[in-house]
């Protein structure tokens, strides 16, 4: 799950990670009000969308840039007026772009030096790992590639946590001076506390800045949260902005379906994540293009199967649907009944290729045969994929 920059700032404020003063606004008047309260000579107005590359993005109106430096509250209001309610396209947003509903208005800071600081849940060491560098404000992948010696990695013990000396050592190692070391270490400790307390998978502060006033602040940040832990953080789950997500994925998530939209024309419905991925792969192998990843889970109900069909059939790009079920926990007859119910409720004129195997397979096949639904049955996974690809050829 992603969150907006202003939400990240609010989390930082709550846990004591220093950031430039500022606030979020939804109208031009609010923008002017926030800018006046800040009382600084200049303010930065930043469009709030999940995609990166905002500064270099272009609004569909033709207005350039989703991040602007403004020299008065009135100017901030004027700029915000050109962002709010407009669609911003960046290299990460896709061609359709993202609607800007909110802007962050923040005091501009004079930067002396930029750094990189991140905490990641690392699967190899099975620990939270701090990654830090003297090279901030740039793509960290490039630093890792070209100057790996400028990147330090410090695994943190799961139960001992980040120790004071570790935070101070990291600060010195990435180039903070003796007097800057303590405020930097304090920020690291606060960020680690936030990371653990909210079950993050990633907190990336880039850039972390030293201002000309000698303050250490998080200027921009990216968060990732462990979806498995959201149940114990309702305040984090509430930060989800479904406007930023693929509407097909939002619809699927309402029924606990694991769906990821792709660009192809062969939809697939599969039980189990590994088999669902493998089904996409085999469609591609035979020259087709999968329209989605969809794992209906181990114990899907008839209702979930019906809703899954609704989402697949409702996608205008979809020209055929491939159902691949290997019944383990899930019973083939339940799936078959779901397919029959869905076919009766939703007018489906698309070729429907069904491959069933596993628990209660005989009952499932019998139900499908007796239902009179127009479908193509497949004997095995390879056969199913070939038939699906042929059906859209």
């Amino acid at each position, binding site marked *: 799950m992603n969150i907006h920059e202003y939400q990240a700032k609010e989390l930082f404020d709550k846990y004591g990670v220093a950031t430039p003063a500022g606030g979020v606004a939804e109208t031009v008047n609010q923008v002017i009000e926030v800018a006046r309260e800040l009382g600084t000579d200049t303010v930065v107005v930043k469009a709030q969308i999940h995609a990166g590359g905002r500064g270099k993005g272009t609004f569909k109106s033709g207005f350039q840039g989703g991040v602007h430096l403004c020299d008065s509250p009135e100017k901030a209001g004027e700029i915000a007026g050109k962002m709010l309610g407009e669609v911003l396209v960046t290299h990460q947003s896709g061609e359709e772009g993202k609607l800007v509903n909110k802007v962050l208005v923040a005091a501009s800071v004079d930067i002396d030096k930029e750094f990189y600081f991140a905490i990641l849940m690392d699967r190899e060491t099975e620990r939270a790992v701090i990654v830090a560098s003297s090279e901030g404000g740039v793509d960290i992948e490039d630093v890792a590639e070209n100057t790996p010696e400028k990147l330090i990695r410090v695994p943190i013990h799961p139960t001992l946590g980040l120790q004071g000396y570790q935070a101070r050592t990291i600060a010195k190692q990435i180039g903070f001076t003796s007097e800057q070391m303590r405020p930097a270490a304090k920020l690291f400790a606060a960020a680690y506390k936030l990371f653990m307390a909210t079950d993050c998978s990633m907190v990336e502060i880039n850039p972390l800045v030293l201002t000309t006033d000698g303050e250490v602040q998080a200027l921009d940040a990216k968060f990732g949260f462990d979806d498995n832990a959201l149940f114990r953080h309702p305040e984090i789950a509430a930060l989800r902005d479904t406007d930023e997500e693929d509407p097909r994925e939002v619809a699927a998530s309402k029924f606990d379906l694991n769906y990821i939209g792709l660009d192809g024309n062969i939809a697939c419905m599969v039980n*189990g994540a590994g088999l669902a*991925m493998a089904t996409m792969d085999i469609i591609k192998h035979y020259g087709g293009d999968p329209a989605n990843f969809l794992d209906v889970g181990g114990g899907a109900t008839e209702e979930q199967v019906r809703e899954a069909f609704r989402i697949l059939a409702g996608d205008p790009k979809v020209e055929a649907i491939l159902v691949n079920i290997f019944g383990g926990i899930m019973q083939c007859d339940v799936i078959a009944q779901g397919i029959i119910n869905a076919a009766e409720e939703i007018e489906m004129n698309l070729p429907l290729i069904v491959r069933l195997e596993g*628990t209660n397979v005989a009952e499932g096949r019998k139900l499908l045969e007796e239902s009179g639904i127009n479908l193509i049955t497949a004997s095995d996974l390879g056969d199913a994929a070939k038939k699906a690809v042929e059906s859209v050829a």
Partner: protein
Amino acid sequence: MSVLVNNDTRLLVQGITGNSGATHARGCLEYGTNVVSGVTPGRGGQVFDDKVPVFDTVVEAREESGCNATMIFVPPAFAADSIMEAVDAGIELVVAITEGIPVADMMRVKTKLAHSKSVLIGPNCPGIITPGQCKIGIMPGYIHKPGDIGVISRSGTLTYEAVWQLTEAGYGQSTCIGIGGDPIHGMTHLQAAQLFTEDPDTRAFILIGEIGGSEEEEAAAWIKENCDKPVAAFIAGATAPPGRRMGHAGAIISGGKGTASAKQEALRDAGIVLADTPAEMGAALIKALG
């Protein structure tokens, strides 16, 4: 023969009185697994299905029933606690089926595990089965057949697919281990490959991986140097978009790492026969046998 589980396995089921715990405890009993006890805190003294005594704690179950393996069906919020309870009680094999355990909880579990003799399989896995002897988990028993092919997999239904292809072709299995789809988990591909390499009754094995992490590469490197047995493999997720979690919490390509092609290359380099499609997993193993 087999690895890890056999006719001598005495199984405890943690969460035996819950919905899925009860369903799958019955499934294991029907298969012939020796289910000797259950644990549900607060239900001590009850008897499950008139045959399996239920205890409040794992320590009591261990003392009273002599269980040496446990199958965990406890909801995600409490699963880490249950795994640690089993580890503390000295249960030799801990199989965690539960899906959705927070990563930070698993990180703490692994710290605990490092100082114990217990082996953890999972979580977020179908379990482990030695056909004809012992089934611990949620896999449909009838698709398996006793034999000498080992199966290692991060997935559930994709494993059933592979097992079914093997069984249909007449190749039975020594043991099938579902290591699970979470980023931080117990037994790795490499550890499972080591077990099958050392097992005199396993003639060959198939490794089923997917995008994310580097376990397949690590197993491939080890196999290249240390394993003389025929090995086949399949990697799922060649068409998965980067940066997206493909159902399993651990199935994600991040920062260009964990791609299917990198894994396939490492496996090929180790002389492992790769299945081009998931429909050919059984065929790849048969090809590896020569």
